[in-house]
């Protein structure tokens, strides 16, 4: 069965070009990039090239890039560095729709280390309450960490504007740009963020490789202490093959940015328009404009997400849901709850996240599969009668 993969916010296919770039370094080119011999140094040179390619994607300088093991490590490193740099400051700010890498870290710091965390709410469209955010910034604030784009809805926060305010108040600003990278333009020279996280497997590089951008001049204290690697900012022998793969993926991501904004956006908009038109009582979660071009979170009233996903799975379609039942938790996603998405559609919300590999035929396959699936589940639902929710 042909697989239609529309779960790219979960992970992406490693690009063929990336695999090709990496292969020699799994094999005969196994040297350590730090070694004092030509054999190792040829890997070292390739790592230098990769660092430059990563920097180019976000308009950073190569020395501002450190490689980590994943987005979560990057997020943790940023926050721990900030609280180590300002040991007297005991306040942290984030939003209430963050990835667990920040959300659970903040909760941990509150419970175990006496920090006070402010979780700024979002409105029904998933947009951040900026007024509350600016009011929350105090002299006691050690760091503000906000996601550039939300993984579930694709809704973007105005990071430029927020970073400017944070800079003026002298508060460190970190952004988790894991979902935004490769989908919208990121320019750290224009955006005043101090630190920024990226993840390889969201942009067609392998899993197990991440990046933390650290603005030049920023005092940084390492999260993983060890050898001299990454100029003492992250110990551990470099994951050379993945770094090299990530470099290639970043180069491709930069080339593909215009395609994201045209081809991918058009496919997403087509899928969205068709589903809204052909499936009654369906609604999009999140602001329609301030949103990643590849993401569609759509809720179907009176049906449940896991059931939808398993029926789509039978047709080879990969998507994800904000429903409780898929994750093992019992409440719908904290993102949809924070947006006050009503239960009738929150439990039946599905996320389609596209990549440039998707085609219009695939969108038609999803539409043709989903219409009878929703119909079947509604016929079974005690909350659906005569074409509407009861």
């Amino acid at each position, binding site marked *: 069965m042909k697989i239609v993969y529309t779960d790219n916010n979960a992970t992406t296919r490693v690009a063929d070009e990336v695999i090709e770039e990496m292969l020699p370094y799994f094999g005969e080119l196994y040297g350590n990039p730090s070694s004092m011999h030509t054999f190792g140094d040829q890997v070292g040179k390739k790592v230098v090239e990769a660092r430059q390619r990563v920097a180019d994607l976000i308009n950073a300088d190569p020395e501002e890039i450190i490689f980590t093991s994943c987005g979560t490590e990057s997020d943790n490193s940023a926050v721990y560095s900030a609280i180590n740099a300002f040991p007297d400051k005991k306040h942290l700010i984030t939003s209430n729709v963050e990835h667990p890498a920040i959300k659970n870290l903040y909760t941990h710091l509150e419970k175990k280390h006496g920090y006070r965390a402010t979780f700024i709410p979002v409105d029904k469209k998933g947009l951040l309450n900026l007024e509350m955010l600016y009011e929350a910034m105090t002299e006691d604030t050690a760091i503000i960490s906000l996601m550039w784009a939300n993984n579930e809805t694709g809704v973007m926060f105005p990071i430029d504007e927020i970073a400017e305010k944070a800079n003026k108040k002298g508060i460190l600003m970190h952004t988790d740009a894991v979902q935004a990278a490769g989908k919208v333009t990121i320019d750290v020279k224009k955006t005043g963020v101090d630190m920024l996280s990226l993840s390889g497997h969201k942009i067609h590089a392998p899993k197990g490789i991440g990046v933390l951008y650290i603005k030049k001049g920023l005092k940084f204290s390492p999260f993983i202490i060890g050898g001299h690697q990454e100029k003492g900012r992250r110990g551990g022998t470099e994951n050379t093959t993945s770094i090299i793969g990530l470099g290639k993926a970043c180069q491709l991501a930069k080339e593909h940015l215009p395609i994201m904004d045209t081809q991918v956006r058009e496919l997403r908009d087509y899928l969205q328009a068709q589903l809204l038109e052909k499936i009654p009582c369906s609604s999009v979660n999140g602001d329609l404009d301030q949103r990643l071009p590849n993401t569609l979170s759509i809720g179907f009233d*009176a*049906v*449940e*997400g*896991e*059931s939808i996903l*398993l*029926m789509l799975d*039978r047709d080879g379609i990969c998507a994800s849901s904000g*429903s*409780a*039942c*898929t994750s*093992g*938790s*019992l*409440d*719908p996603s904290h993102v949809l709850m924070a947006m006050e998405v009503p*239960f*009738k559609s929150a*439990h039946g919300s599905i996320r389609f996240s596209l990549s440039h590999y998707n085609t219009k035929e695939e969108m038609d396959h999803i539409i043709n599969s989903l219409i009878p699936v929703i119909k079947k589940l509604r*016929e*079974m*639902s*005690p*909350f659906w009668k005569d074409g509407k929710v009861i």
Partner: protein
Amino acid sequence: MWEYTDKVKEHFMNPKNVGELKDANAIGETGSLSCGDALKLFLKINENDRIVEASFMTFGCASAVASSSALTEIIKGMTLDDAAKITNDDISDFLGGLPKEKMHCSVMGQSALRKAIANYRGIQILEKPGDVVCECFDVTDLEIIDAVKANNIGTADDVTNYLKAGGGCGNCLERIEEIIESVKAKQ
């Protein structure tokens, strides 16, 4: 992804006895939209107190649908007295087992069946006997005590798996642990 048995998958993809039973003379409802799953069970019971037809309407995940389908298959043809003895384990066993995090789906089946039988017999079931412990999922101490005894539950996690209690905000988890300990102490 959940490890569902082939039987669960079969009863999810091709559920038996779906839809409203027009001439039902007993109905049992449990769950709600906010909880994320709900079951409405329809029974047609003859003059000899035998279930001649059963159907369901379910909102929920694959295991909720499969549990509902299984329940209707199990009870069709049973006398009310026999049906009243059906437990969530019977439903789970019929399906070759459920992931433990999904046991509450089979509990939902048992609960709807009890309510339908009471409905037929004209017994008013008090909606919620006992004091509410879990406010997120509206679960009382008596329900927790029953589940702990019936399924030999030893941890708060398992109470969540069977009843959902404690699976929302988590504020009641300590209270649930106290209840488990008090039941064990009495045993």
